């Protein structure tokens, strides 16, 4: 991550030309609504991401970066609309700059152009949340649980977790389906062997008993133990009897009976619930064509989302706003979720039918091979089996399932119309088969037994493999769920702890025991907060708008701390505490300063009091601010840069531009007088519209300063604090000298030399005015360069000390 050194904005949004120097520290931009503050926020965001949040998202359909980011006078010249941001990268200890033009927003010029610096900017671009507006903070607070879950997960970059979980679940399901098919094959193979052996249950001893009975007839060695590779027909070839294939009469009749029984029961009976399920789901799809389209394209959306890594669509090469494209694909994926659930149900039912087909084909197969089967009957059975195989294969695709609707409605098995006749004629033919000799019968029996035993062994091995695979799929899904849920619960707990502690710090006066609780469940993230120990409620239930704003910022900071950790080096807070009252904003300053001392906050506000608080509480230095007074189309923001005002006045005078210098001094004094009157508690006549005269304010400030220095001197003397006495004495002397230089306090507020008339002075007449005001103002400021803040009274209501944030200036006002 980075910290901003300075930013140069040209012809961008409402700004014609502006340079702000931030020196890696927090910075405040104040000004009334419409004065151009948000233009700076947009410029920072644009420099870092190539995008402007305000020009995208809901309700911005007609707005585009290309057309609406340049200044209105430069709409046809996007090349002229540019932002350069000079930054420091703490972990690399390098300074760098990045320049973007609206013409080529996705092709920034980075200097020095080094891979590690590009990587840093790429990472920053992945975190647009470093810019926060009120609109965005409140979305975490006042939103329904499902949307909050998505927003928080997006902020925390957790979008992939659900996707990975879904992929692992699909994998598990598919592996379970494979296992089910293998199980059907193994069961069928076992049934086939049991039929041949005429055993109701397949047990080793029973099997050997049946086998050995035939082996004894053939004079073969008896088998004492059934091993995994035992050949029950072993030795037949040595006896010269091997190997007459085919079935024994009993076995053939058993096979015929098996198919006959199945046909009598109804071949499709066991699959009826699955067929019903398929038809119901197909009806849902027919009722809503969009569901089917989403179902077909779900994988496509995901692949597209994975491949979005540049400003162009990976498929059609059309230029896109990356975030818009991602959001577009995510919305489609979200909509396709229900469609995917429906698709899963379709495949699950289709799998049940496929397993039935496996069993059925295994019943058909032995009959096809019977020597008694006529050519025609054999062809009909083979064709039926082939058709079932093709049908089963078609059920592996969505289109195949949908195309089979009619077949499901009218009977998927489609047995030949002559099935019963074929079975009857086969049974009659086999029954009429002349009895073979006992040895021939035994020979055939053993050969077929070995064949079916082998089939069973292969099927069982396959089943074991498929079981192991499915078990892995199940474990992987379970482990991922456990790990991700554990991590998310821990994460949410950390965030809720931080969130609550930040909020308590801001609201220690009335909600010092505030608690918060996240409740994640089923893709939702409920947030409950304590309300004065009366219970846990949604944030919008009882808390005021100001408190909700405070919660929003606290939650944002807690989330950012978790997302970026020590990389949370900067954030832009765009008018985020507008509904928070002054006392709580002061506490918010403390939160920023004490909890995030290494984070650079760029803060905009329309509220001068909040800007002042940021300075007096030491969040920003006295020179880390700029006040926008007004804004015009021609000039952009008209500002008072506290940091460089004297240098700019000097520059104006050097060019003999007295009116410009006079206007600049006037604006600065208006700004300073208002600030100082507040800091020192100067007494002025209250005006409801807040339009105080600068001369009146400044006079009151100077008078108040004299009073406070007297109070401080009196206190120092009462404590016999010689060091303080000397210090205050020096201040008083300096003040007296400055006021004398300006012909006394009355000069400053003398209507005869009113500031409106400065513009008419000559350069030489005006320069002393500048000098005296500069010296006067310096009297109210800490002279330490790092502090450079106004002196202020603490506490405000019953002050006991006049001090600066760093403590260098610390004048006790209370006597012993």
């Amino acid at each position, binding site marked *: 991550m980075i910290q901003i050194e300075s930013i140069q904005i040209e012809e961008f949004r409402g700004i014609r030309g502006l340079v702000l120097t931030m020196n890696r520290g927090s910075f405040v931009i104040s000004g009334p609504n419409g004065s151009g503050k948000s233009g700076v926020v947009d410029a920072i965001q644009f420099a870092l991401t190539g995008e402007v949040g305000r020009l995208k998202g809901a309700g911005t359909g007609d707005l585009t970066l290309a057309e609406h980011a340049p200044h209105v006078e430069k709409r046809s010249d996007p090349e002229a609309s540019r932002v350069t941001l000079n930054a420091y990268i703490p972990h690399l200890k390098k300074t760098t700059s990045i320049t973007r033009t609206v013409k080529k927003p996705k092709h920034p010029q980075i200097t020095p152009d080094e891979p590690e610096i590009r990587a840093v900017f790429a990472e920053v671009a992945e975190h647009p949340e470093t810019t926060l507006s009120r609109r965005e903070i409140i979305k975490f607070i006042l939103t329904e649980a499902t949307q909050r879950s998505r927003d928080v997960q997006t902020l925390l*970059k957790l979008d992939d977790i659900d996707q990975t979980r879904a992929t692992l679940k699909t*994998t598990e399901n*598919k592996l379970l389906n494979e296992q089910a098919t293998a199980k059907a094959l193994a069961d069928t193979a076992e049934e086939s062997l049991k039929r041949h052996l005429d055993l109701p249950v397949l047990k080793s001893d029973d099997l050997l008993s049946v086998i050995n009975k035939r082996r004894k007839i053939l004079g073969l060695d008896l088998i004492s133990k059934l091993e995994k590779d035992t050949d029950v027909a072993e030795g037949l070839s040595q006896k010269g009897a091997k190997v007459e294939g085919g079935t024994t009469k009993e076995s053939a009749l058993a096979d015929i009976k098996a198919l006959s029984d199945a046909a009598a029961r109804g071949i499709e009976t066991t699959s009826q619930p699955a067929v019903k399920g398929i038809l119901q789901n197909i009806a849902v799809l027919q009722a809503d064509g969009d569901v089917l389209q989403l179902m077909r394209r779900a994988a496509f959306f*995901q692949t597209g989302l*994975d491949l979005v890594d540049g400003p162009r669509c990976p498929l059609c090469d059309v230029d896109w706003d990356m975030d818009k494209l991602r959001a577009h694909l995510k919305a489609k994926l979200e909509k396709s979720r229900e469609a995917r659930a429906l698709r899963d149900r379709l495949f699950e039912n289709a799998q049940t039918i496929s397993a039935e087909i496996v069993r059925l084909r295994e019943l058909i197969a032995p009959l096809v091979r019977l020597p008694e089967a006529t050519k025609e009957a054999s062809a009909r059975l083979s064709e039926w089996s082939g058709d079932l195989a093709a049908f089963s294969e078609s059920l592996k695709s969505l289109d195949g399932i949908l195309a089979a609707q009619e077949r499901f409605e009218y009977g998927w098995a489609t047995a030949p119309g002559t099935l019963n006749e074929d079975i009857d004629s086969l049974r009659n033919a086999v029954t009429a088969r002349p009895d073979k000799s006992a040895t021939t019968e035994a020979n055939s029996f053993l050969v077929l037994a070995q064949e079916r035993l082998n089939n069973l062994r292969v099927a069982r091995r396959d089943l074991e493999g498929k079981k192991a695979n499915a078990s892995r799929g199940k474990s992987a899904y379970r*482990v991922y769920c456990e*790990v991700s849920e554990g991590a998310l619960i821990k994460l949410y707990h950390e965030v809720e702890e931080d969130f609550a502690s930040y909020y308590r710090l801001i609201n220690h006066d009335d909600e010092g025991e505030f608690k918060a609780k996240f409740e994640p469940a089923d893709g939702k993230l409920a947030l409950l907060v304590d309300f004065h120990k009366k219970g846990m409620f949604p944030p919008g239930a009882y808390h005021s708008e100001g408190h909700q704003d405070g919660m929003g910022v606290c939650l944002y900071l807690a989330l950012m701390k*978790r997302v970026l950790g020590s990389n949370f080096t900067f954030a832009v807070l765009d008018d985020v505490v507008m509904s928070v009252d002054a006392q709580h904003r002061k506490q918010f300053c403390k939160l920023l300063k004490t909890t995030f001392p290494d984070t650079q906050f760029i803060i905009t506000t329309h509220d001068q009091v909040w800007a002042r608080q940021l300075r007096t509480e030491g969040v920003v230095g006295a020179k880390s601010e700029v006040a926008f007074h007004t804004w015009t189309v021609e000039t952009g923001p008209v500002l008072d840069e506290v940091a460089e005002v004297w240098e700019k006045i000097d520059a104006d005078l050097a060019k003999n531009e007295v009116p410009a210098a006079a206007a600049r001094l006037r604006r600065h004094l208006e700004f300073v007088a208002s600030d100082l009157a507040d800091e020192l508690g100067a007494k002025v006549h209250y005006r409801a519209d807040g339009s105080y005269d600068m001369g009146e304010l400044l006079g009151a400030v100077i008078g108040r300063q004299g009073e406070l220095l007297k109070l401080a001197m009196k206190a120092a003397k009462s404590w016999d604090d010689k060091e303080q006495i000397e210090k205050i004495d020096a201040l008083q002397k300096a003040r007296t000298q400055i006021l004398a230089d300006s012909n006394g306090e009355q000069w400053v507020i003398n209507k005869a030399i009113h500031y409106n008339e400065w513009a008419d002075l000559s350069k030489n007449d005006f320069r002393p005015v500048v000098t005296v005001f500069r010296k006067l103002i310096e009297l109210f400021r800490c002279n330490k360069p790092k502090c450079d803040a106004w002196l202020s009274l603490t506490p405000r209501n019953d002050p006991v000390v006049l001090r600066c944030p760093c403590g260098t200036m610390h004048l006790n006002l209370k006597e012993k």
Partner: protein
Amino acid sequence: MASIQDEIFEEFCQRLEKTEQFSEARVKQVRQLFAGRTKPKPAELMKAFSEKDVQENVP
């Protein structure tokens, strides 16, 4: 800084390695699949989870 998703995935792999069902090689394969530019498809994961040369004792 590793993302939360990366942390979850790393723990997921470590937990898989501790199970008897997942050999080191198989977990490595899973890691490779997720390291790709696009997320793995179920068919790819099925392949990674499938085992050959399964031995079994048939009675």
